């Protein structure tokens, strides 16, 4: 193997790894705040990709209807959970988040979609359509289970993943889609030809991570989210509404998932069920990183990306096997070092 191939494989691996890193980060965040292992996050990648591809083609994406359905369901779930202790501001807020916001986004999409408004507007519109689904799903599926053990939450997450894959088929159809790159620029650096999309992925990933870091280290809301993850009881005692912390964590995960989808759909054809395998790589990275460490997750994600690109070169038939079995030695090593994990709560 010569150095050119090596460089190309590395570049490929890092670009994919950047996406996995974003997904892994949001998995770690969601787990820390809500103890949910968000298996369904991959579906947001597919939803984001397919929504963007539809908008790019000048069509109204099926996800707009799905957003409306989830909004209604979220509203019903919110009213049911708060029965008996509803006051006006709470009801107004719930209606705003579950009915008004999706309606506004839907109207915007209906007006803008046929106009083919250009990459930037299409990306923003995609994020606006897909992101709110995640906190809505939190309301519907996880808030009623807030005090359940991790295993129950995991089962709910798997069920949600299966449901969302099915809904993806209903609302997007069985065909795969691909969208053109954001720009056709290519940068040549020595033997490397770096396509514009790779630069976009690298740049946006870096910007998003910096923004997340600033949010969690500097802002009081970010600190409140961390506090909820560190000690839920303590957070409740200082008056942090911990259910809202869960909503925010899910919203961030939805946003990151949708953005990842938008970023990869120019690189590969995405189907309604493609999200799971991509999400699974983020998940693998999060687990290798220990499901509790943000830098660990990012590092592991880059490794997963690189391992994937090298194994697809040498043994492409076993690509998935190689990537996912990477988890086993890490888990073994961990369990040898720490002894059997204690069942939490």
């Amino acid at each position: 193997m010569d150095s050119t191939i090596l460089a190309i494989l590395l570049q490929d691996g890092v670009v994919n790894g950047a996406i996995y890193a974003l997904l892994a980060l949001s998995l770690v965040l969601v787990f820390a705040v809500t103890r949910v292992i968000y298996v369904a996050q991959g579906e947001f990648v597919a939803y984001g990709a397919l929504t963007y591809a539809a908008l790019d083609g000048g069509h109204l994406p099926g996800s707009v209807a799905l957003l409306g359905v989830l909004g209604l369901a979220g509203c019903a779930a919110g009213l049911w959970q708060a029965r008996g202790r509803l006051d006006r501001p709470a009801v107004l807020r719930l209606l705003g988040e579950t009915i008004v916001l999706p309606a506004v986004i839907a109207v915007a999409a209906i007006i803008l979609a046929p106009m083919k408004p250009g990459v930037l507007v299409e990306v923003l519109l995609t994020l606006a359509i897909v992101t709110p689904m995640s906190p809505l799903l939190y309301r519907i599926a996880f808030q009623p289970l807030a005090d359940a053990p991790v295993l129950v939450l995991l089962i709910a997450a798997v069920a949600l993943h299966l449901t969302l894959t099915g809904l993806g088929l209903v609302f997007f159809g069985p065909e795969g889609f691909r969208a053109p790159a954001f720009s056709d620029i290519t940068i040549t650096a020595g033997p490397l030809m770096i396509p514009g999309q790779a630069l976009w992925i690298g740049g946006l990933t870096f910007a998003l991570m910096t923004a997340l870091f600033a949010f969690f280290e500097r802002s009081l809301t970010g600190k409140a989210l961390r506090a909820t993850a560190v000690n839920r009881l303590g957070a409740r005692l200082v008056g942090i509404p911990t259910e809202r912390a869960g909503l925010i964590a899910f919203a961030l995960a939805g946003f990151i998932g949708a953005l990842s989808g938008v970023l990869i759909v120019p690189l590969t054809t995405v189907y309604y069920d493609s999200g799971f395998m991509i999400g699974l790589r983020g998940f693998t990275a999060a687990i290798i990183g220990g499901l509790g460490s943000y830098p660990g997750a990012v590092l592991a994600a880059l490794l997963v990306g690189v391992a994937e690109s090298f194994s697809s070169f040498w043994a492409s038939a076993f690509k998935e096997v190689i990537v996912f079995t990477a988890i086993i030695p890490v888990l073994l090593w961990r369990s040898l070092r720490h002894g059997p994990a204690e069942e939490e709560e």
Partner: protein
Amino acid sequence: MSVLDVSSVTVGYGGITAITDITIAVDAGQIVTVIGPNGAGKSTLLNAIMGMLPSRGTIRFNGQNLAAEPIAARVGDGMSLVPEKRELFATMSVQDNLRLGFYRNRAQGKRAAQAALDDIYDLFPRLSERRRQDAGTLSGGERQMLAMGRALMARPCLLMLDEPSLGLAPLIVRDIFRTITALRQTGVAILLIEQNARAALQVADHAYVLETGRITLQGDSATLAADSRIVEMYLGRASPPMGG
């Protein structure tokens, strides 16, 4: 006027009643203590007042019935609890722990937050020295200070302390009780739960004795401290001497 009025409150854990028909009151600027042995239901009482546990009966705070009010709203109204296990944010700095104590008041802005922080550092200079350190690395006494500091950041009118002396060396216990007395000067009412009856009766104005879920005795702290039953059960040889 009473800051806190608890009347006929009953709390159970899934069918088993932990406290029955409890009635207590805390007046403005008062220190009231509830003493009692392990498992009497002291923590249960505080958690119910804070809204951490559902209860029957009525809880009035500054004349307002709390009923189904969530914890966050109670904190906003001026109620703060320092729990038995402190519940600090272990992997966050001392200063961040304190800042989060101001969460409900955050609309008041940065300067109000800084002023509150300065007040806490005046009250506990030790916390100021350790402001950048993670809360999880503090000593037991410092943790208790941080837990109290975090609760005070909300500028409560009622501070509830669940066994602040638990697991601390006598010298530190003395410091904590000094602070409690000093806090009274600032006008905050205090509901103090203790097993260390001697120390609690020394600082409190009024005291209740809670045994197996019921109030069995109540009165002036001084009167109770002289009551033969109290002396025998709580102030006898069993409890360690306390400097004041």
